[in-house]
């Protein structure tokens, strides 16, 4: 077996608590499918047959029981539960399942929605015998107004500085703005080996990593590393150029473990020696500068790749996700009356009931939603089990599951939490109506 897939679905969704305080993040509906479905679909499409899913008990229960949240994938899902409240990072979770890992792993986050050709990332991993290969994308601005936000205030995101070499594939430098106090400092040894480095800040990390098995074993011994993205990846990127890694006598046992050589190392060396290929030119060193630890990144410019970890991303995902699958926009079991005006880019879930004289444009209606007469829904996301009474006008809002919007309510750019009630004739504007 070449690669084992691991899906990290235990994240809390700390940046969108309004949505996740009742529904766990992996189960949030995007385009009427649970968020977890998208990475699982990606893995299934490329040919994986088994996935290890690390998640919480709550999600596991929802997966098994809730019919609205049916995840229909043909793969075998090996669900491993971890404590929800325990401060388990992604690396801790990997350490937890170390016994199950028999070969190299592909770690995917549950909030990744993408249509990238996965073989590009894995090919980098295979061809260069890399220790780490990851996926990043050139981010773009979100244009939709985020409900509940007054004005166009953008929260200050901590930037990530990513340094790649001239070919754009080799990862040379990775740091978060928070970790850099005075400024960005780059070691001379890196500059000597790679005189041309491109430093990018606008990249979105897709949290998709191919890791060698030796890294998982290394994690098992180094309990101080708790997050893959925050700690493990920068560590590996730094260690590519560390003197201890490249010297013949490796003193650090941890590193020795990382650089576990294959059984026929002399043969591989011979092949590399005899091959007339070099990954760089201009200096006297051999391919890869003789380094054994290599990290690669694949940066995509086009195509869909978004991580649903903020409210804005969630809304954006709802717009774009339906393009990923070819199911009909209107579920066959939905009951739509004839005098309803429905735009072609709206999605109606199963068992919906939409009455006369309604207008639904650019919106998503969840399963089992009831929309009564003379309702206008524009640019909104309506989750499952919502009831919208007559004469409502909903614009640019997010209505969570099982909410009830009273008659004649007027909602603009709002977020209505789970199970909330909006009074009839209520007028809510740019407000988060949650418990």
């Amino acid at each position: 077996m070449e690669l084992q897939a691991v899906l990290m679905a235990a994240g809390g969704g700390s940046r969108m608590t309004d949505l996740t305080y009742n529904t766990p993040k992996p189960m949030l509906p995007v385009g009427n499918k649970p968020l977890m479905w998208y990475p699982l679909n990606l893995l299934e499409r490329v040919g994986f047959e088994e996935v290890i899913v690390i998640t919480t008990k709550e999600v596991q229960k929802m997966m098994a029981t809730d019919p609205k949240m049916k995840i229909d994938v043909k793969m075998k899902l090996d669900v491993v539960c971890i404590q929800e409240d325990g401060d388990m990072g992604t690396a801790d979770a990997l350490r937890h399942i170390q016994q199950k890992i028999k070969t190299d792993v592909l770690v995917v986050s549950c909030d990744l929605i993408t249509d990238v050709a996965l073989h590009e990332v894995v090919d980098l991993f295979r061809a260069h015998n890399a220790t780490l290969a990851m996926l990043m994308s050139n981010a773009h601005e979100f244009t939709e107004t985020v409900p509940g936000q007054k004005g166009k205030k953008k929260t200050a995101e901590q930037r990530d500085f990513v340094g790649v070499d001239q070919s754009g594939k080799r990862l040379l430098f990775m740091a978060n703005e928070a970790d850099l106090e005075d400024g960005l400092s780059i070691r001379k040894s890196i500059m000597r080996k790679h005189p041309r480095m491109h430093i990018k800040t606008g990249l979105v990390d897709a949290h998709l990593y191919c890791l060698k098995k030796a890294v998982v074993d290394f994690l098992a011994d180094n309990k101080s590393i708790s997050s893959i993205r925050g700690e493990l990846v920068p560590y590996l990127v730094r260690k590519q150029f560390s003197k201890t890694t490249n010297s013949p006598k490796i003193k650090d046992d941890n590193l020795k473990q990382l650089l576990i050589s294959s059984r026929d190392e002399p043969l591989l060396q011979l092949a590399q020696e005899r091959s007339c290929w070099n990954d760089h030119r201009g200096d006297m060193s051999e391919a890869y500068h003789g380094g054994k630890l290599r990290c690669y990144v694949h940066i995509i410019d086009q195509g869909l790749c978004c991580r649903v970890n903020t409210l804005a991303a969630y809304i954006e995902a709802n717009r774009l996700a339906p393009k990923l699958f070819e199911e009909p926009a209107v579920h066959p079991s939905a009951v739509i009356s004839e005098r309803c005006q429905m735009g072609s880019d709206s999605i109606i879930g199963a068992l919906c009931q939409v009455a006369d004289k309604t207008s639904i444009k650019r919106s998503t209606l969840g399963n089992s939603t009831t929309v009564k007469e003379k309702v206008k829904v524009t640019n909104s996301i309506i989750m499952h089990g919502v009831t919208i009474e007559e004469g409502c006008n909903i614009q640019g809002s997010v209505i969570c599951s099982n909410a009830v919007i009273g008659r004649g309510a007027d909602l603009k750019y709002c977020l209505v939490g789970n199970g909330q009630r909006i009074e009839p004739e209520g007028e809510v504007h740019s407000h988060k109506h949650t418990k």
Partner: protein
Amino acid sequence: MADSGVTDEPGTKDDVHRAKTEGKELSKEEKQRLRKEKKQQKKNKEKKDEKASHESEKKKNKEEKPVSAAAPASQPPTQPSTQKAPSAVPAPAPVPVPVSETPALADKPAKTKADLKAERRARQEAERASKQAATSKPKAPPNELQPVVKRLPEHVQVDNPGVLKKLAKKLERQQIPLRLDYGYKVSLFSHLHQYSRKAPLTQQLSIPSTVIHPAIVRLGLQYSQGIVAGSNARSVALLHAFKQVIRDYTTPPNEELSRDLVNKLKPYISFLSQCRPLSASMGNAIKYIKKEISNIPSQCKEEEAKRKLLSCIDCYIDEKIILAAKAIAKSSIEKISNGDVILVYGCSSLVNHILCEAFEKNIKFRVIVVDSRPRLEGREALRRLVQRGISCTYVLISAVSYILPEVSKVFLGAHALLANGYVMSRVGTSQIALVAKAFNVPVLVCCETYKFCERVQTDSFVSNELDDPDDLIVTRKGKTQLEHWQDVPSLGLLNLVYDVTPPDFVDLVITDLGMIPCTSVPVVLRVKNVDQ
């Protein structure tokens, strides 16, 4: 050809019939004539064209006379001779129309030369077809008597849809995706595959590859991206991957290792040849492995068999590659003297090894590295030599005639040595050898014996490799002129990889068996086969 033993008797149709009825053994021409008549009759029934059959009748009549009367061997055919395709069966004799026959011809209605040609050709086709069917049985016994026929690899024929279909079916059976050709191919090379590096075969494979062993997938990727390039490197990497395959192999129940493992290797080899066509050295290595696997006795336990195979592979690499390089270096160093100026082309691992060894022995020489686009492998050779401390000059192949007056010897590496003495090497090698010959500079080719190939080739067209044409596109000062070459209908980019050098340009071949002239290659092959 078939006109041996021509009798001077007028052998008319009546003669033949007489001979038959008398039970006499028919002479060769008579037999031929008989066969022709039979086919003619068959053809006449099929042919709807009255004129043609009429013509053929007349032609037949006309033929009998020349065959009997003339000495065709001495008389060159006055009629434009049709192209006689070489067939194993004696083709109908060329029809010379002797001068004596011209008065007879005048009687018949005038037939144009083209008509006769076409008609003759059609008859030949029919005869050949029926002969194949009719004489297949008599042909079988002679084949059995021959020694085991060596199966040479089939020639690549991409422009033949029948062959392509067969290949597609074979790949489908082995569950390997078919790699599609890319871009417009120059017509002279349209029978070869041309792949794009941006469309790797892994696109069509499932990611945790189950059908193909991960080591082989990795190897295929490294081949197609050029990370493992060079004849020796490719063979070593291949054997390394095979070692991993053998380690991970378990014999399924009710199967024998010796047969099942060979069957397991077949799809891997197809996959690798789809990623990049196999080299001659790889082919020989694969043959060796298959032979070793088939020779495993059936009562051998699996662990022991695997261990034996792994040690065989190690042995092969040691003998054929590492020790051979040492032996070749020892012989070559005798040929390098102080004050020599040695010209090398591209990056040959063996030649670099030789030069480094010679430098260790404190021989004072300098090297001129010749390089060519698009691969520019000379840069890597330059780096390796300069790193050792050898003083080098670097030129592009366009300057080779300017630099040759300074050169005292030319050392070339080889991808394969063909059975007729031709050297197959990186494209540009034959040019260097030609120019060196013109300047009377000795050309020495260094090649291990495991690269000797039973193929025979006299030109670089029949069997070659086409690399990605987009490699030829270069960006200078921000402008990429050839960026949209596909839109220009009359433009084709050709990126050849190999060419063949005739043995007249090569003065010496240095192998691990010694220093031999180019024409001794078949002897070495024969000796090798006897050993095996």
